[in-house]
């Protein structure tokens, strides 16, 4: 029976049958791991998600966060015990190196665990996620003193962390920020300014909070090139590690939001009384470059948020559709005695569910593969391999973030459709998925900004090699699938989409060099979606090719030599049912979605600029 959150079978398929991450366990840095250990960790993650985190989901949403009379933010009460258990389990720093108190877990393995946590309650997960990310910045760029003072206590969950970029006048355009840093005689800085929308900006889960803050040192140039990054504790820390005076970081307010209400989104006022002290992290004016380490990780985590919600929404919808009895089936139209059936029997519901399944499995594959690419970059033996896998991760980051979140919004919306009127009501959990997932399209750089990052930076990166390497992967899938009898025609559909997409990409490359660069900019978002669709087609077909082989093996082992016997096995053998589903989802996506790719590419190539040409007055 489903745990209602994530299909563990599909996770295991991706990790061990499709990407074969167990190959990572052969050598450093992952030689302490084995498949058994990986499975055990995934099973503990499931327990943690279902028994500890999930019970906070609706309660955290209803209670929300508030600023109390003393100026302290209170998070939902039920988060406290869950946070303690989560940290005790070692999950906060799971992917960090054992030398700094982490578990050294492969990112791909952790990603499977974090899908569970995100599906159970992403608002809760943000407190630990930001803490781990902020501590990692100190690990990478901090002095030994900073590490001893802050990092270890953050990785253990004793203290929290945030990321402070956004200001009222500096959202997408971080370079416009106004927060300033004034040199003090002892080498530290006085920080003054207001940051808004700061997740976990204040909370009562930990005794101190360490803020990495972007600010401009007085006299430094405008724009991103003049930004530095500072470590600013909520409460100052004495040299002996004890807590000292409050550091003049005040909470202006806590936002009232559409979703992730359990996550405190705060306005923070630094240095209102002129007493907020920060320490420079890394070198002066390298703030953006340093912060990007955290942002890139956070973008992948947002992709996982999207996946988790989509997955949970789908699992719920399937379960509901099997139980809800409504309407007689269409083929019994003329039978007055016909009985109403579970709605999963209705073709329209069925297609929605299959679309959701294909999408969930597709974005799961995209996100897991990006994580696996990060592992492979560490594991690689040659500089070429390292560059190749790092290139995959860099290229895919905006797609993981933006495509996953856009699609997850549609999946959660469809889940509500399946529930009918009940889906719209709070008594059922799916409406919260839709509210909670929408933010994934916005923070960590809006999806519009992600698309610009893809088109403007990522395509050309590494002289275009990253895209070419990815194209080669897709080509391989097409070739392999063409050799499988039942998949040939679907491989042809992927091939057609792939050719059109590659052609569009080349067009973009040449337009980028000419005066028509507005075409790629105008069409960055549709381009990102096309890229996502091609990748989903690629990963699903790759999976289907493996699944089809496994099916043949099972049929042979069980002597199922007729279509009838094979069909019967679907009902008896859960493995057969799983693999059949894997193949069906791939075929469905190839048949329904991929044929639209070519047309959409053609549209962009026509070079229409209507939205820009039309005057603002005409809107």
């Amino acid at each position, binding site marked *: 029976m489903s*745990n209602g959150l994530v299909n563990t079978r599909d996770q295991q398929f991706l990790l061990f049958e499709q990407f074969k991450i167990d190959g990572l366990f052969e050598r450093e840095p992952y030689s302490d791991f084995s498949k058994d250990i990986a499975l*055990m960790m995934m099973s*503990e993650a499931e327990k943690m998600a279902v028994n500890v985190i999930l019970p906070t989901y609706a309660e955290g949403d209803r209670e929300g966060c508030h600023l109390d009379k003393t100026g302290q933010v209170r998070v939902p009460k039920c988060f406290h015990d869950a946070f303690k258990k989560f940290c*005790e*389990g*070692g999950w906060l720093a799971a992917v960090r190196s054992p030398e700094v108190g982490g*578990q050294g*877990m492969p990112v791909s393995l952790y990603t499977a665990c974090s899908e569970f946590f995100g599906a159970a309650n992403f608002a809760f997960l943000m407190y630990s996620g930001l803490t781990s990310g902020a501590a990692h910045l100190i690990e990478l760029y901090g002095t030994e003193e900073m590490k001893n003072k802050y990092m270890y206590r953050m990785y253990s969950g004793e203290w929290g962390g945030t990321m402070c970029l956004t200001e009222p006048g500096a959202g997408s355009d971080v370079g416009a920020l106004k927060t300033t840093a004034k040199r003090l005689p002892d080498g530290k800085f006085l920080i003054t300014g207001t940051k808004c929308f700061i997740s976990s900006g204040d909370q009562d889960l930990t005794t101190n909070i360490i803020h990495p803050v972007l600010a401009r040192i007085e006299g430094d140039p405008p724009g991103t090139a003049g930004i530095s990054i500072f470590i600013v504790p909520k409460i100052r820390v004495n040299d002996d590690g004890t807590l000292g005076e409050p550091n003049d970081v005040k909470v202006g307010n806590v936002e009232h939001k559409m979703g992730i209400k359990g996550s405190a989104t705060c306005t923070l006022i630094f240095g209102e009384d002129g007493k907020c002290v920060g320490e420079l992290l890394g070198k002066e004016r390298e703030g953006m470059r340093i912060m990007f380490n955290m942002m890139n990780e956070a973008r992948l985590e947002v992709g996982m948020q999207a996946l988790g919600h989509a997955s949970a929404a789908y699992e719920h919808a399937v379960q509901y559709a099997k139980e809800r009895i409504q309407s007689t089936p269409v083929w019994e139209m003329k039978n007055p005695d016909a009985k109403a059936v579970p709605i999963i029997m209705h073709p329209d519901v069925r297609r929605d569910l299959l679309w959701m399944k294909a999408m969930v499995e597709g974005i799961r594959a995209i996100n897991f593969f990006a994580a696996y690419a990060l592992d492979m970059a560490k594991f690689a033996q040659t500089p070429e391999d390292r560059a190749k896998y790092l290139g995959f991760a860099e290229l895919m980051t905006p797609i993981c973030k933006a495509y996953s979140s856009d699609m997850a919004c549609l999946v959660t919306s469809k889940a509500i459709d399946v529930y009918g009127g009940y889906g719209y009501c709070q008594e059922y959990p799916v409406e919260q998925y839709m509210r909670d997932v929408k933010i994934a399209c916005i923070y960590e750089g809006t999806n519009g900004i992600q698309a610009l990052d893809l088109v403007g930076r990522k395509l050309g990166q590494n002289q275009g090699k990253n895209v070419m390497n990815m194209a080669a992967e897709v080509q391989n899938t097409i070739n392999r699938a063409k050799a499988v009898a039942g998949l040939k025609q679907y491989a042809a559909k992927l091939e057609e989409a792939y050719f059109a997409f590659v052609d569009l990409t080349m067009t973009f490359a040449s337009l980028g060099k000419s005066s028509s660069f507005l075409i790629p900019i105008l069409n960055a978002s549709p381009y990102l979606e096309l890229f996502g669709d091609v990748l989903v087609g690629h990963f699903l077909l790759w999976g289907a090719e493996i699944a089809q082989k496994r099916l043949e093996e099972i049929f042979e082992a069980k002597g199922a030599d007729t279509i009838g016997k094979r069909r019967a096995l679907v009902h008896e053998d*859960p*493995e057969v049912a799983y693999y059949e589903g894997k193949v069906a989802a791939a075929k469905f996506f190839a048949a329904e979605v991929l044929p639209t790719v070519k047309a959409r590419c053609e549209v962009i190539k026509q070079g229409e600029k209507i939205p820009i040409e039309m005057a603002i007055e005409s809107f």
Partner: protein
Amino acid sequence: MNIIACVKQVPDTEAQIKVKGDGSGIEEGGIKWVMNPYDEFGVEEALKLKEKFGGEVTIISVGPARAMETIRTALAMGAEKGIQIDDPALYNADAYATAEALAAAIKGLPYDIIFCGQRAIDDDSAQVGPILAELLGIPQVTFVTKLEIDGKTAKATRPIEGAQYVIETSLPCVVTATKGLNEPRYASLPGIMKAKKKPVDIKKAADLGVSGASKSKVVKFTPPPARPPGKIICADDTPEGKAAELAKLLREEAKVI
């Protein structure tokens, strides 16, 4: 203190059990296997005692190769070492044969207290702990919801209908654990990494000098009969009308009042 906790691997409570076509057992494909939930209380209590008094926790399980996962889970929770009794003669063993194998494995070990779950959620027999105590010739307290140990004696609380016993016994003894005794911890990531380096002995029935023969025999597995559909009472939409209808059905159809 030397503490022993017996664990059994069972199908997850959520698993949908299908009886094999020939009635010889259940279909194992697709089942998720977990530690018997009552055994988790035993393991947790064992770990707490160790944390208080020092010493070692040894995990023992009778089961096929896959049962190793369950032993590793207990080791990941914090136990020191494990013994797996894996012998085809003991697959589908009854409570007596299981307890006999456990007793034989335990006899050679130093122990101050032995934990079992009050019953296993698959066969629900609730006998392994009691038989084990008898075979070892030591006292037993079953269905324990609270345990106090002072090194030499144990004071255990055991609920009975509408009341509870508080039972004092000397050590060593067998305690069978039930819900309420504690809140089992989750295996931590560092715990999982350490667990793989902890020793687990794998033994056959012959190594322990037992035959593995069961005293009872399972003749056939049959699924429970499908439940007849429920009935919604809506004859008359007032509470009084519904209550009257319910009373009538309980008397005339169900014949329970």
